[in-house]
């Protein structure tokens, strides 16, 4: 008040009258001399303050690796869009991709290396950190080193492998908590490729056994684009019909014409039942069907299938008829079918339906083979985490490097990852945040965000030809003294260990530049001049590899079905199956510290900033559970206390709990929020591949007597979704009135 000078007085006086009545609404005048103008010394010609420029790069938020174009203004990246040159996303981008700027600008990013000193992590300079890294890793004896990474491809994979070798080891473990390895192995057996190309838009029918291809599965943006065309009727094909079969409704399930809630684990039984019905129908050509499938299917008649799966005979008949009438179709297998002891058998039986229906060669094709195997995608699995844990437990590892995964958070509690990590003497974690794993490290190296780093990526799912996508910094480092590229750090190690091979590369950029320019003849339309090629590659963001198309085999290889354990006896102690649902925004929990994604309502429940347990209305009624009751979900391996959400989109014998929340150490937006269902998974594994059976955990639930309020967009009142409080926000029609059954 005492700074109210004459000039201010007059200024106010001048804006009396009309402005007085609305002055509080924003007659804002900014005082002079408060902020500093950002100006340039020697800007590039294209750099105009206030005008955006666009750079192509790659989205690293999930394994799909869409191409992105980032808008950069005044040296800051503002927003990402899809790159039209990318065959994966064709200019589109999902919400998860949009949110990656929040990884970049995140306030919880590490800004200095941390070195363990007498039990606590203390900030050190990069010089100290690098010498600690080089000296202490050099002391590792042969074979006692391991590198644990997330899914990795491109030249970073080469550096990771070579670093591992240079430290006298061959133990590079690629861990993906949401691994699709069961699917890949089954597809490889049946079609001869781990990731066959799925031409959804050519199909007239999609039958998906739990593959949430619109939201979380493999390459969601690409599949969503195809799905849009699949749904559009043209002169040559009718509007496509989608049938989703799964124990817990996914976003794809919510889009389906018919959603079938199946008893968990019996997906293979239904698939074989369908195969049997199709093969024994009049007029079926047979031929290419794998003999083991045909033999096994014969035992699954309609009565057995309907009893075991809980799918009614009427729905079963409809499904058979749809499959007969609509060709070509696509049959997909997803995590809820594959996450069981007999998950591989389920996947084989489901994918074999594509042979039975004659889809192979029409909607299921083979992508070309990548000519350079060394940069090919290493998609990761959970079996490798178990190998890593076993090596730690046996005391075989002294030094471990961990990058892009957070096993202390995402490994099931039975693996006791935190305790096992103690057995290694020198743990180096490359991380953006001080997450649960970084907290256990001896040296934490803060790495660049994806928008500051260089890289090349080879997406595992290739919709057109073979694409290598380029990643380039969209802006200068936010913390030039604080973070480094992991590529640069690994090159430091390699320069020390193998100077003669690596001394020529100043940094990771120089390495990438040299490697790509040298091999430019391998790419489609590469110009003769190296620099021209490099500039083109960066401005386009995508490189097409010269590779001949592969042809699908005329016949499937023989498969062996192992269905033991498929029929589950009723378990009175743990009567429910746990469905640990993947959310598009959270995935394996790595994105929990992005407020945009926390704030984005879950697509089906509209819940924000929290976890929940989905309980079927009939089950809830039986147990006296209402919306918001805090219930205990307990397996043999652990328990969670979480709010109940009454949800008709689950099988009555299933409890759905989403993954991604329940962090102890990640950042301000993630910590102490919700629960982490990874922790209560039972030690059950797919018999064939050794993958963790994510959907095989049995749980019981009980009330705790505590009640909360579910924070969700649809309104806090139970049942508000049905009435929308009388406001007709979204006008709906119940399914029985819509006469969908006429067609589906």
């Amino acid at each position: 008040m005492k700074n109210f000078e004459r000039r201010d007085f007059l200024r106010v006086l001048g804006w009396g009258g009309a402005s007085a009545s609305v002055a509080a609404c924003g007659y804002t005048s900014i005082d002079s001399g408060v902020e500093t103008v950002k100006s340039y010394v020697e800007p590039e010609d294209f750099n105009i303050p206030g005008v955006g420029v666009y750079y192509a790069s790659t989205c690293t938020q999930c394994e799909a690796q869409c191409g992105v174009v980032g808008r950069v203004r005044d040296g800051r990246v503002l927003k990402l869009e899809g790159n039209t040159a990318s065959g994966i996303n064709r200019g589109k981008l999902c919400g998860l991709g949009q949110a990656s700027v929040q990884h970049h600008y995140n306030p919880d990013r590490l800004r200095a290396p941390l070195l363990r000193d007498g039990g606590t992590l203390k900030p050190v300079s990069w010089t100290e950190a690098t010498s600690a890294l080089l000296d202490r890793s050099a002391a590792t004896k042969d074979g006692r080193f391991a590198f644990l990474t997330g899914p990795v491809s491109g030249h970073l994979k080469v550096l990771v492998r070579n670093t591992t070798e240079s430290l006298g080891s061959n133990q590079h473990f690629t861990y993906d908590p949401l691994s699709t390895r069961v699917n890949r192995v089954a597809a490889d057996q049946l079609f001869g490729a781990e990731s066959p190309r799925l031409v959804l838009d050519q199909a007239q029918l999609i039958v998906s056994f739990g593959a949430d291809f619109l939201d979380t599965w493999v390459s969601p943006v690409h599949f969503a684009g195809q799905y849009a065309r699949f749904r559009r009727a043209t002169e040559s094909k009718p509007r496509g019909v989608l049938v989703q079969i799964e124990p817990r409704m996914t976003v794809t399930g919510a889009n389906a014409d018919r959603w079938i809630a199946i008893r968990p684990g019996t997906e293979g039984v239904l698939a074989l039942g369908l195969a049997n019905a199709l093969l024994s129908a009049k007029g079926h050509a047979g031929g290419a069907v794998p003999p083991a499938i045909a033999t096994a299917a014969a035992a699954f008649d309609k009565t057995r299938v309907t009893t075991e799966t809980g799918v009614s005979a009427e729905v079963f008949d409809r499904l058979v008829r749809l499959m007969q009438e609509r060709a070509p179709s696509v049959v997909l297998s997803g995590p809820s079918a594959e996450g069981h002891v007999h998950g591989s058998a389920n996947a084989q039986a489901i994918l074999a339906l594509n042979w039975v229906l004659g889809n192979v060669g029409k909607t299921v094709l083979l992508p070309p083979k990548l000519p350079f195997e060394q940069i090919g995608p290493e998609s990761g699995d959970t079996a490798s985490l178990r190998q890593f844990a076993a090596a730690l437990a046996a005391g075989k590892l002294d030094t471990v490097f961990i990058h892009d995964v957070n096993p202390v958070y995402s490994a099931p509690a039975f693996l006791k990852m935190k305790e096992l990590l103690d057995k290694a003497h020198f743990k180096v974690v490359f991380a953006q945040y001080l997450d649960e794993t970084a907290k256990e490290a001896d040296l934490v190296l803060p790495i660049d965000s994806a928008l500051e780093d260089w890289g090349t990526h080879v997406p595992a799912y290739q919709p057109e030809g073979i694409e290598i996508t380029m990643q380039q910094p969209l802006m200068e480092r936010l913390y030039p003294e604080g973070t480094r590229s992991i590529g640069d750090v690994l090159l430091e190690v390699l320069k020390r260990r193998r100077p003669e091979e690596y001394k020529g590369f100043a940094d990771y950029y120089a390495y990438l530049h040299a490697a790509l320019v040298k091999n430019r003849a391998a790419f489609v339309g590469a110009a003769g001049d190296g620099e021209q090629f490099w500039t083109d590659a960066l401005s386009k963001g995508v490189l097409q590899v010269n590779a001949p198309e592969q042809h699908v085999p005329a016949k499937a290889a023989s498969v062996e079905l192992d269905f033991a354990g498929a029929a589950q006896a009723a378990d009175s102690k743990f009567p429910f199956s746990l469905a640990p649902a993947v959310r598009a925004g959270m995935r394996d929990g790595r994105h929990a510290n992005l407020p945009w994604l926390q704030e984005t309502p879950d697509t089906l429940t509209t819940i924000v900033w929290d976890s929940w347990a989905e309980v079927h209305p009939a089950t809830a009624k039986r147990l006296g559970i209402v919306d918001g009751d805090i219930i205990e979900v307990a397996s043999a391996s652990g328990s969670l206390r979480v709010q109940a959400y009454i949800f008709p989109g689950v099988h009555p014998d299933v409890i759905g709990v989403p993954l991604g929340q329940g962090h102890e150490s990640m950042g301000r937006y993630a910590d102490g929020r919700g629960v982490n269902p990874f922790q209560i998974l039972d030690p059950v594994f797919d018999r064939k591949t050794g993958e963790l059976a994510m959907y095989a955990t049995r749980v019981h639930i009980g009330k705790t007597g505590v009640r909360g309020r579910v924070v969700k967009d649809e309104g806090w009142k139970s049942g508000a979704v049905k009435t929308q409080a009388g406001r007709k926000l979204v006008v709906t029609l119940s399914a029985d009135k819509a006469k969908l059954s006429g067609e589906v």
Partner: protein
Amino acid sequence: MQALAALALGLATSLAYAGDKVEQPIEFPHDVHAGKMGINCMYCHTYARRSRVSGIPPLRKCIGCHQSIESVKDKPRIKKLFEYWDKKEAIPFKKVNDLPDFVRFSHERHIQRFYFQLGRPVEEVCGYCHGNVRGMTVDVKVEPLTMGWCVSCHQKDHPNSKVGVEAVSARVIFPRMELSEQSAQGVNAETSHGPNDCWQCHK
């Protein structure tokens, strides 16, 4: 506080606005460059016609001329200028004419319209908002740059129509706005898209 005072006074008197002189790292003499030398504003503020911000000229621009102007090389301000250049460091000038983040004002549109299209003299065009810069050393804010002030200009030259729906949104926010008797069609189509649509400035 000002808002409260305004409510209390509620007087409708118009007085000239006068901003404070801001202390800058270098007291740049606009009077010499734009006044004595008669250099076009846009020679240095080169972004004004191409971007929504006019920008501080890059340091390279200053040096481009001054490296060959021997007569003033020993002046303290020029010495200071070359110190920044040798360090390759931008001069931390303070903002004088700043707008809140929720306002999107485009220099480009105003320059393109008045200078290039209507051919008005540059000192007049820039002067609408910045006053007589030729008489200043460092820039001083001479207009309040509030919404009411913006509207006062647009209102004077292109009054809103009382007829039709275009005026409604502006009217809600600015109830005392003078409206013209002309029909909406009578108002120049180009300018009626101007500030009469909230979205034009508040995107």
